[in-house]
């Protein structure tokens, strides 16, 4: 597929051929830093002074470059598609190659950053368990009740990924066996012919 670049976008990127190729590489580096850690006005001002151009031009150039990289990574463009999309900007061959190299080097990273953006449901992280035998309680003596206590750790979803929520749960042995048989059926579902057909054909 080809990217369709808006007129405004093309205008922003029009700055790139006017500078040295080393500068384009520098912009690429700023772009990646932007994606990883955000940016600050000082970086733009510094670059603008060195190149003797207004700050907005530098800012638009970097943002345009970043948007180009984002969209290409989102759609997983092949090399050919990327070059064809960039062709419309009318850059020379060397600049196109620089942009391509920038894309190829970084698109995996960009995709993994993007994949953290969507809000998600809590996801399974870990299950800790222990087997206890209850011998007595305040109301009742001389019991022999096996009890499985479990701690389920889940990631919090759209919040910070390093925090886990934990829930303490109990189950008796028969419930445990029921859980195991149900989940094994779930695992088997992915290996049915129906499942395999879908996984194979939607790519």
């Amino acid at each position: 597929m080809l990217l369709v670049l808006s007129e405004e976008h093309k205008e922003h990127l029009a700055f790139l051929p006017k500078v040295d190729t080393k500068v384009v590489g520098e912009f690429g580096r700023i772009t990646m830093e932007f994606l990883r850690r955000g940016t600050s006005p000082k970086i733009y001002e510094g670059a603008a002074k060195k190149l003797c151009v207004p700050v907005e031009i530098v800012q638009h150039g970097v943002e345009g470059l970043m948007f180009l990289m984002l969209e290409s990574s989102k759609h997983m463009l092949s090399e050919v598609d990327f070059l064809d999309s960039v062709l419309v900007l009318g850059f020379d061959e060397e600049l196109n190659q620089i942009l391509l190299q920038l894309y190829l080097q970084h698109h995996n990273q960009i995709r993994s950053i993007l994949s953290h953006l969507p809000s998600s449901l809590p996801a399974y992280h870990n299950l800790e368990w222990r087997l206890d035998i209850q011998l007595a309680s305040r109301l009742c003596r001389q019991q022999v009740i096996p009890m499985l206590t479990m701690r389920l750790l889940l990631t919090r979803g759209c919040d910070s990924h390093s925090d886990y929520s934990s829930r303490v749960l109990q189950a008796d042995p028969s419930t445990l066996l029921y859980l195991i048989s149900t989940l094994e059926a779930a695992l088997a579902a992915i290996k049915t012919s129906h499942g395999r057909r879908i996984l194979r054909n939607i790519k």
Partner: protein
Amino acid sequence: MELSESVQRGLQALADASSFDQSSFQALIDVSHRSLLSSHGDPAVLDHPELKQIDQILLKQVHTAATTFILEAVKQNADKSTISSSLEELTFSAEKIEIFYSIYQVHFNSPAHFLTPFLSFSSSIGRRPAQINDISWRLQYHMKNGQVDKVNEPFYSISLNSEKDGCSEDMNFTCTMEQLQDLVGKLKDAAKSVEKASQM
């Protein structure tokens, strides 16, 4: 069995033949067992035809003493001789002891611990973590989302239903196939250790 003074007094009143003949005694013991085993307190529990002639205040004292005695016996898993000797000390006649024990036995049959209502009754009172009731799953294929195209990954949505103090709660989470295999592996380890423990 250790019983407080007020319980002992209530039971002695129950033992007294002039206040409770055998049929009203049987009715009261029956009613006491049923009020322990039902899940809701029933204000009409003492409205039994056999108990209508008895002074209502005495009836309540005796009912409280009887239910406390039954709970104590259940708590300690008392056998027939323990119950009989405790009741004898409180001046119960042999016939009343027989009547009591035959009703008690129907509801609280010891020592088969695992299979009796005794077990679920006493275990359901008290604090404990949420109990797992049910689990359901969905297998889905994630194709794309607003930020990333061509994701193309299968994943599971699991819903774990648990209950605590009568409130049911659903825990929803997602996992990949590898994570689900990890979860099932851990549950199987737990099951194996339960099996080993039961063989000791």
